[in-house]
């Protein structure tokens, strides 16, 4: 029995049989004529049909991914590079691999995050082609056991698009983060995923226990580990059957949804969310090749309001820096990005850009109940600066005669220990608190959530984190402002019970499935 920790995870628990997804057939098997594979033309045609089908059948985001894949597949440079390697005397499979490496390397070298990410697209497409040529891999997915745990170096959109999710119980990958494709798919399918796991030595057929809540993977568990695992799973399932947890006052905790796109809002509201407790605006900025204009932002925020159907929408100010960079902002690399220029610090450093977001949010507020939330606040002065900027922008819009919310509520995320310690003072100026338990845990415990070595320390249920939450709740209650939670701690029934007992007013959840389960009661 071996236990390993992932660097990141998608919540949930599953036990099953490992299915190792190879990185394509090995070069030996790919010799010309071997394996009964296709010709290059047939492979291109087959992949084209596949992407067309995925792009047609996929929903919003997935459809877009495959439309872009299609464009690259049909790009003359891809074909030319492959043919160049064929002319060098390589076999078709090796030629595709060589072209893949060459093109991916070319993009990986470019000093630009967006373009670097295209390297993954190229590798995904080339792997599909080489699998067609060699006749390898695809049958791995055709014959899944009923309890498959997919183990791979990394998973690409074309892998997951072909999976039978009636049989897939969990994902375990070496690469990937909570924002990568594999996590998005895992969340939407409601299955756990462990990312950043050392997968060496795991073989197809191995028994695996996947615990997305503790980021723990057990390979070949002994009887005791199996028993403990299923006891915990049963307990979680039973507690999931419970009603929405009650606060000490006897009133239920309100259930909101987290959203990272417009589509997420619709899904959360349809699942029964009482509003959107965290609308991440990073996608607005990351999908653009330049700083989005006020009009562009306004159009998106107004659409977000419309999709909320009159329910409250909390828009978080751009939370960039740290692990998420913006190509066009030219942020210098930092030695400790999580202790560096991020969240409100970055917003206030670029007031001319931040202003556009504030104005767009104020204007969206004319169409429904909108609140603005400020991330990474450590000092009262930061909140004061933001409130001043909001006041200036409100006055401008007033003068310009543009419709807006004249009394926009501005709250803060409580995710630094400094904000917890100063919560009574902050509560007098903030309209609400929203506790980001992920960063609060990381900063309170001084434990990097990406470092498996300290994974046991990174625990939102630690008494120190609970006490920090309680201090924040008490400060909020005394000032008469609502206190919500928008971190992963609220994603388990156990976490929600603890949060309710501490007196939080609302939890904001990422999983639409959980929202509908809680709201059906």
């Amino acid at each position, binding site marked *: 029995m071996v236990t390993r920790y992932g660097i990141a995870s998608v919540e949930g628990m599953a036990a099953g049989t490992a299915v190792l997804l190879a990185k394509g057939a090995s070069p030996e098997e790919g010799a010309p004529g071997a394996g009964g594979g296709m010709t290059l033309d047939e492979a291109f045609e087959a992949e084209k049909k596949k992407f067309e089908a995925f792009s047609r059948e996929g929903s919003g985001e997935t459809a877009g991914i495959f439309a872009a894949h299609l464009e690259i597949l049909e790009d003359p440079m891809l074909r030319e590079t492959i043919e160049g390697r064929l002319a060098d005397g390589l076999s078709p499979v090796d030629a595709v691999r060589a072209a893949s490496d060459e*093109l991916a390397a070319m993009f990986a070298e470019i000093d630009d995050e967006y373009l670097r990410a295209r390297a993954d697209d190229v590798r995904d497409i080339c792997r599909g082609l080489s699998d067609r040529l060699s006749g390898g891999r695809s049958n791995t997915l055709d014959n899944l056991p009923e309890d498959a745990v997919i183990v791979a170096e990394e998973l690409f959109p074309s892998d997951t698009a072909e999976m039978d999710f009636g049989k897939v119980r969990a994902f375990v990958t070496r690469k990937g983060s909570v924002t990568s494709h594999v996590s998005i798919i895992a969340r939407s399918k409601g299955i756990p995923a462990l990312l950043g796991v050392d997968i060496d030595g795991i073989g197809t057929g191995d028994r695996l226990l996947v615990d997305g809540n503790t980021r723990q993977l057990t390979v070949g568990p002994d009887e005791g580990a199996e028993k403990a695992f299923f006891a915990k799973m049963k307990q979680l399932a039973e507690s999931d059957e419970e009603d929405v947890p009650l606060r000490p006052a006897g009133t239920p905790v309100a259930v909101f949804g987290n959203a990272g796109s417009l589509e997420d809002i619709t899904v959360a509201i349809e699942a029964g969310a009482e509003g959107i407790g965290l609308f991440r605006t990073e996608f607005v900025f990351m999908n653009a090749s330049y700083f989005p204009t006020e009009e562009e932002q306004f159009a998106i925020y107004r659409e977000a309001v419309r999709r909320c159907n009159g329910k409250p929408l909390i828009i978080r100010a751009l939370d960039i820096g740290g692990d998420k960079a913006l190509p*066009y902002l030219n942020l210098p690399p930092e030695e400790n990005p999580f202790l560096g220029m991020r969240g409100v610090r970055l917003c206030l450093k670029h007031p001319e850009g931040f202003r556009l977001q504030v104005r767009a949010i104020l204007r969206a507020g004319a169409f429904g109940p909108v609140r603005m939330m400020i991330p990474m606040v450590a000092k009262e002065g930061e909140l004061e600066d933001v409130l001043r900027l909001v006041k200036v922008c409100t006055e401008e819009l007033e003068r310009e005669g543009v419709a807006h919310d004249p009394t926009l509520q501005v709250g803060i995320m409580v995710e630094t220990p400094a904000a917890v310690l100063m919560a009574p003072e902050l509560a007098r100026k903030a309209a609400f608190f929203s506790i980001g338990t992920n960063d609060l845990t990381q900063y309170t415990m001084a434990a990097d959530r990406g470092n498996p070595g300290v994974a046991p320390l990174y625990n939102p249920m630690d008494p120190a984190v609970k006490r920090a939450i309680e201090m924040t709740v008490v400060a909020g209650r005394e000032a008469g402002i609502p206190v919500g939670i928008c971190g992963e701690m609220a994603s388990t029934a156990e976490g929600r019970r603890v949060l309710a007992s501490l007196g939080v007013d609302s939890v904001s959840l990422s999983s639409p499935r959980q929202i509908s389960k809680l709201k059906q009661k």
Partner: protein
Amino acid sequence: MKTQKITVLAENGLHARPVGDIVRAVKSYAETTVTLATPAKTVSGASMLGVLSLGLKAGTEVEITANGPQEDQALAAIVRIIETAE
């Protein structure tokens, strides 16, 4: 054959959107071939991968060459896209 040199002014270089515009424009002039060249390499204007791989940054000088029945229009269209890219 028509050729023109132009310097990329877009502060953050040419990204997916303008590059996509270039590729679509080039493809719309079916009989005319367009290449883009920097001192480092020359690529087909009809290849998204190729144009992206030039890594066109602010200040880069790029030479556009159009050859075919609609070379004047094609050249003008590409120059305009690069000039107006933000």
